[in-house]
């Protein structure tokens, strides 16, 4: 009940922070909120490595289960999300790949370059500047949609649409357009 009340107030960073504090204190509902917010990014980090989508969901699930277990055993002193969950999921993925390789199964096609650690970035500084410059050239409404969606992990598009006063369909259209522009800049 308390978690739902906080969510109704608007999660934002402060709400997410309190969920993390409560999760460390062992509140299951807080864990569930955090998983709902960050699970997609954990899955994406595995997809980005070439993991198949169904396995990515399973590994993400296992990663969260391990974190919860660690917290219950009193071994989790700090909770940095989504980085910690991503790290755990990647560990499980690479561990599985290593086992398959050493088991003599079919030769795996070259994996992507060793994954950046959870703390590393996906973009160089130059790419980041170029992308942000391209974003600044987008219409203000498009920028607003983009920021709301990408700054609030796990926020449903319906909620973002309500905040900006647009339809869900229009929000998705805008996101696809912005993605297309930024992709062009990032792939230059």
């Amino acid at each position, binding site marked *: 009940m308390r978690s739902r009340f906080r969510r109704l107030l608007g999660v934002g960073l402060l709400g997410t922070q309190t969920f993390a504090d409560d999760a*460390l*204190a062992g509140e299951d509902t807080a864990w*569930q909120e955090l998983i709902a917010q960050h699970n997609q990014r954990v899955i994406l980090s595995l997809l980005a490595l070439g993991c198949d*989508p169904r396995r990515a969901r399973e590994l993400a699930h296992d990663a969260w289960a391990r974190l919860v277990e660690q917290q*219950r055993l009193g071994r989790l002193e700090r909770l940095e999300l989504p980085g910690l969950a991503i790290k755990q999921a990647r560990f499980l993925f690479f561990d599985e790949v290593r086992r398959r390789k050493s088991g003599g199964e079919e030769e795996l096609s070259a994996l992507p370059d060793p994954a950046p650690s959870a703390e590393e970035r996906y973009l160089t500084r130059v790419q980041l500047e170029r992308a942000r410059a391209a974003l600044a050239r987008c219409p203000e409404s498009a920028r607003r949609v983009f920021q709301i969606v*990408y700054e609030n992990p796990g926020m449903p598009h319906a909620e973002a649409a309500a905040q900006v006063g647009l339809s869900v369909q229009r929000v998705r259209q805008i996101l696809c357009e912005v993605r297309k522009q930024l992709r062009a800049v990032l792939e230059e």
Partner: protein
Amino acid sequence: MQPHPDDLDLYVMGAVSDERREEIEAHVMACADCAAVLAREARLELALVEVAGAPIASIRASRRRPRRLLIAAGFLAAAGVAALFGTRLRSRPPVAPTPIVVTCPLDNHARACVDQARRHGLYVQYPIRRPVPIYESPNLAGGVIADN
């Protein structure tokens, strides 16, 4: 094979229906080209999070023992005040935490068990590493959580 999906961008945004998600995943499992496109879309999606300025460790929390001490001290103080005014605090019975990490009892039923457990918001641990409640899928025993 189904035609190559043209909505992988919506897929990585989490903006497709469950049915469509299943179709896309089934296709990607069988199509190396689309699997590569999906990986690229996923990397782009993560890159866009950086563009928006949300870093990989956007929230941090540490176990704060002092907060619990403060809470405990506050409770004692409140109890003391109540006693002073002759009122009795209504104490709530402790609530047992709802287990969310469970395990499935039988290897050959693990798949059904895991699917069912997840639909109930439970997280399945396998192989078994420590005693956790067992989740029995409804197909086996009516969906009961029993102590291990």
